[in-house]
């Protein structure tokens, strides 16, 4: 009988803890993988290579994974130990800089809480009792359960979830080969409203923004100082330093707001009133670009009719921004055109009406004709990205059955690749339209990310089988039946990343510290055990990468050494910039698809709910020092952001008799948490804000366990029927002194 361990016992077993730097897994591990001579970054590196080899020092160029932005990293490795990470100056996503999270990647690698070998559950689900398994046993067990589910209930009873990682294309191949329609990204918790809003206006889900030439920027949900997207954050700082006028709509005084020209503490859920009134002024005063509208758009007359009633005076009553301010901003914005942008944002106010907000923003940009103009919106770069070699594999079996997440049968406008993860969770519980039985989750933490945490845990409890791939015991891994431990990003390869005319590589900086594997190999070996090996036809990671690199005259060895490859004579093609992939081929001020569905086709006002007496809006957002639910166990980052607090306006705190760091109880319709208060003048008195991602329930995250409070324990499940976006801010709470 195999020995059973609790988490604490697992982690305290000395033989699996990283040896003191350079002893147990020292020089031989680090240097053995890649001969030092071929691992130095290109000459453009900011770190000179001088006589480093003789001192056991090497530098390896790779890609960060402390968030999803994929910044370029140059790692300094001394005698097999990663000592320093620095930004790669040749990488467009960060041009030489790393954010706090990127700098803290070393702690992610050497965390004592890494999962060090495959684990199979040895007690009740969620009990935290495990036994060690070999890779062969863990993969055989996983594949066996997946086969059993497929044989008994059909492939559709198995769900596959993964979020934005470099090997996701291979994960998608695995799930399609298996034959399930049930694929869950976490996009519906993020920016479905933006991507669908822009998709149904421009045929482009996420246009870029030309910060470098922009003269007037309105942010209504892109907090780049705290939601760091490295190069964009840098560009924002330069833009502000250059004197660009920056208007921030946010009920909370964010750090972006503190750097902006103007902060407008908008009432939550009413951003679209602000934008509809801007449209009203621009149309009334004929400040739009008539030629652009005539040539490239459709539906202007309908828009004129619709926005007639949305006067600044009307909007002031809704959004509590003075009508005169709205008028002034409309005029200033139009005067700066086309070097003016109403930013597409990521999440806006997170209400059901966010789709309408995003549509109004998309249409506003169109009225001033900033598309493909300096300082305006940048068309999709898809066609201007170098193409990788592709693997050939047998045709996929047809995916049979409706999707559990309601796409498209409940959410006809939501693209299949986005999905609606909160509905997937709900339908596990309802058993409609059929019972889900198994879940394979790769690097995703639905227990902490989806609203109503308790419901998500209940859904897990209902399933026959749950397998999780992760580097650490996320809350979701904690409730799994089997954990397949992934190597950290500094120990593994992933699929190659083309950006424009460059191809970048994530490669191991050191050999894996523990008995872990790359996702590429976990997917591959799982496919083999499922009898689906032909779909992932590669021997190992380097074999796959060499195939991806095949169209180009460079070897994988050379790419590893240089860190990236520039495709010679790459011609950017701008000829399709004005071929809009919409039903009409034009920018749709009036959406054909909305019209077909019998909905109002132009942006319109949709009255949001507001808290009743004694209740507050609950707002959640980011901090620069943490990524979603992933980094709260990173001790270096806890040094700079130790836990989340509930922001209370001074007047609210005074009423409660609460000071900063006193504990308060927040209670919504679905949950209750205790959290420290942060008393501030930087928030509307009708709102309470907390940073998301804290309040972990996994005892395997020993630093983060029970630290702060989880927003998902409070969030109600409210879904925008158009975009599928989770309307997180339609949760209202009471607050009391603990």
């Amino acid at each position, binding site marked *: 009988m195999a020995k059973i361990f609790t988490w604490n016992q697992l982690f305290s077993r000395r033989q699996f803890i990283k040896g003191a730097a350079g002893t147990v897994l020292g020089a031989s591990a680090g240097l053995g993988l890649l001969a030092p001579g071929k691992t130095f970054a290109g000459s453009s590196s900011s770190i000179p290579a001088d006589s480093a080899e003789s001192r056991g020092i090497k530098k390896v160029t790779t890609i960060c994974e402390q968030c999803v932005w994929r910044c370029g990293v140059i790692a300094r490795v001394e005698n097999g130990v990663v000592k320093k990470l620095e930004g790669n100056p040749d990488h467009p996503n960060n041009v030489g800089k790393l954010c706090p999270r990127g700098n803290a990647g070393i702690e992610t690698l050497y965390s004592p809480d890494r999962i060090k070998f495959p684990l199979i559950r040895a007690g009740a689900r969620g009990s935290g009792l495990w036994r060690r398994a070999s890779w062969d046993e863990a993969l055989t067990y996983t594949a066996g359960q997946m086969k059993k589910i497929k044989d008994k209930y059909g492939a559709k009873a198995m769900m596959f979830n993964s979020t934005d990682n470099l090997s996701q294309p291979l994960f998608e191949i695995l799930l399609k080969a298996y034959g399930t329609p049930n694929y869950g990204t976490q996009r519906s918790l993020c920016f479905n409203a933006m991507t669908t809003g822009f998709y149904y206006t421009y045929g482009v889900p996420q246009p870029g923004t030309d910060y470098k030439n922009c003269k007037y920027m309105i942010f209504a949900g892109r907090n780049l100082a705290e939601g*760091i997207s490295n190069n964009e954050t840098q560009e924002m700082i330069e833009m502000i330093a250059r004197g660009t006028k920056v208007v921030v709509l946010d009920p909370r005084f964010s750090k972006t707001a503190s750097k902006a020209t103007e902060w407008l503490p908008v009432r939550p859920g009413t951003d679209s009133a602000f934008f509809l009134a801007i449209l009203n002024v621009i149309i009334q005063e004929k400040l739009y670009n008539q030629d652009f509208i005539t040539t490239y758009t459709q539906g202007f007359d309908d828009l004129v009719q619709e926005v007639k009633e949305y006067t600044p005076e009307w909007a002031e009553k809704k959004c509590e921004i003075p009508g005169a301010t709205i008028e002034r901003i409309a005029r200033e914005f139009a005067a700066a055109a086309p070097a003016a942008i109403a930013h597409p944002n990521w999440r806006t106010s997170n209400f059901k009406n966010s789709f309408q907000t995003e549509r109004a923003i998309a249409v506003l940009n169109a009225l001033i004709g900033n598309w493909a103009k300096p300082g305006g919106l940048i068309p999709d770069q898809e066609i201007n990205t170098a193409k990788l070699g592709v693997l050939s594999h047998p045709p996929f079996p047809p995916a049979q059955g409706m999707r559990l997440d309601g796409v498209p049968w409940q959410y006809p406008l939501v693209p299949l690749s986005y999905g609606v993860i909160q509905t997937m969770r709900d339908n596990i519980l309802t058993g409609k339209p059929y019972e889900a039985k198994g879940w394979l989750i790769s690097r995703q933490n639905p227990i902490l990310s989806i609203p109503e945490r308790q419901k998500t845990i209940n859904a897990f409890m209902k399933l026959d089988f749950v397998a999780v791939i992760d580097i650490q015991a996320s809350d979701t891994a904690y409730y799994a039946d089997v954990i397949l431990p992934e190597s950290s990003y500094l120990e593994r390869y992933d699929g190659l990343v083309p950006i424009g005319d460059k191809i970048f590589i994530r490669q191991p900086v050191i050999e894996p510290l523990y008995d872990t594997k790359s996702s590429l190999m976990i997917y591959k070996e799982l496919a083999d055990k499922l009898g689906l090996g032909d779909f992932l036809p590669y021997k190992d990671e380097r074999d796959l990468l060499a195939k991806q690199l095949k169209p180009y005259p460079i070897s994988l060895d050379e790419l590893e050494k240089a860190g990236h490859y520039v495709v010679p004579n790459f011609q950017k093609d701008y000829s399709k910039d004005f071929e809009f992939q919409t039903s009409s081929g034009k920018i749709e001020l009036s959406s054909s698809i909305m019209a077909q569905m019998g909905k109002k086709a132009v942006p319109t006002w949709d009255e949001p709910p507001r808290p009743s007496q004694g209740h507050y809006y609950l707002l959640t957002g980011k901090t620069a020092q943490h990524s979603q639910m992933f980094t709260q166990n990173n001790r270096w980052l806890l040094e700079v952001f130790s836990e989340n607090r509930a922001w209370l306006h001074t007047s609210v705190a005074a009423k409660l008799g609460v000071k900063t760091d006193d504990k308060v109880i927040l209670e919504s319709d679905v949950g209750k948490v205790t959290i420290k208060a942060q008393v501030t003048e930087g928030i509307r008195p009708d709102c309470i804000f907390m940073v998301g991602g804290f309040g972990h329930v996994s005892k395997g995250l020993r630093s983060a366990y029970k630290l702060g409070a989880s927003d998902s324990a409070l969030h109600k499940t409210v879904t925008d029927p158009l975009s599928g976006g989770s309307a997180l801010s339609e949760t209202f709470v009471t607050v009391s002194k603990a």
Partner: protein
Amino acid sequence: MTVRMGFVIITSRCIDCDACMVACRAENDVPIGKTRNWVKSSGVQGEFPKVKEVFQPGNCMHCEHPPCVSVCPTGASQKRADGIVIVENSKCIGCKYCITACPYDARFANPETGKADKCTFCLQRLEQGLKPACVQTCLGKSRHAGDLNDPESVVAKLIAKYPSRQLLTYVGTGPNIYYIDEVVPEIPEGK
């Protein structure tokens, strides 16, 4: 002219992301619970909605007249010829006089070594021609370091062009961090 190493910090470019603090921890093996540098916030000032918040990064000021050096009984705390203030570990007896003497609270007792610990200007990097880790990683180009006496340096050019201030000048330490609060549209080219 003698070399006078120091920092220029443009507060208007700081977003309080704390990358400088994490980069320093990695570069200098700073133990958990201690830090050699910081980003201080003014807190949200004013009354809703007329509020503001300012961020002020800092570290050892590498003072002209460093009180940490004068109180050191063993000569471990030293001001180098280039102006950088260091602790020579082999001479430090861990008496903590210097920690008390620093008006900027820039020093701490390293729990692992028992010695006084502080910003070294990343000497090990300077020797390789690299910028200090905090400067290298700064997303907003808020932090700059170099020879304040060299008119061709970025720091000297910034001080020449923009009004700057130092902290606690009245205590007479002659701090070598100069703060610029104004908007700086472009960082000058320089050493």
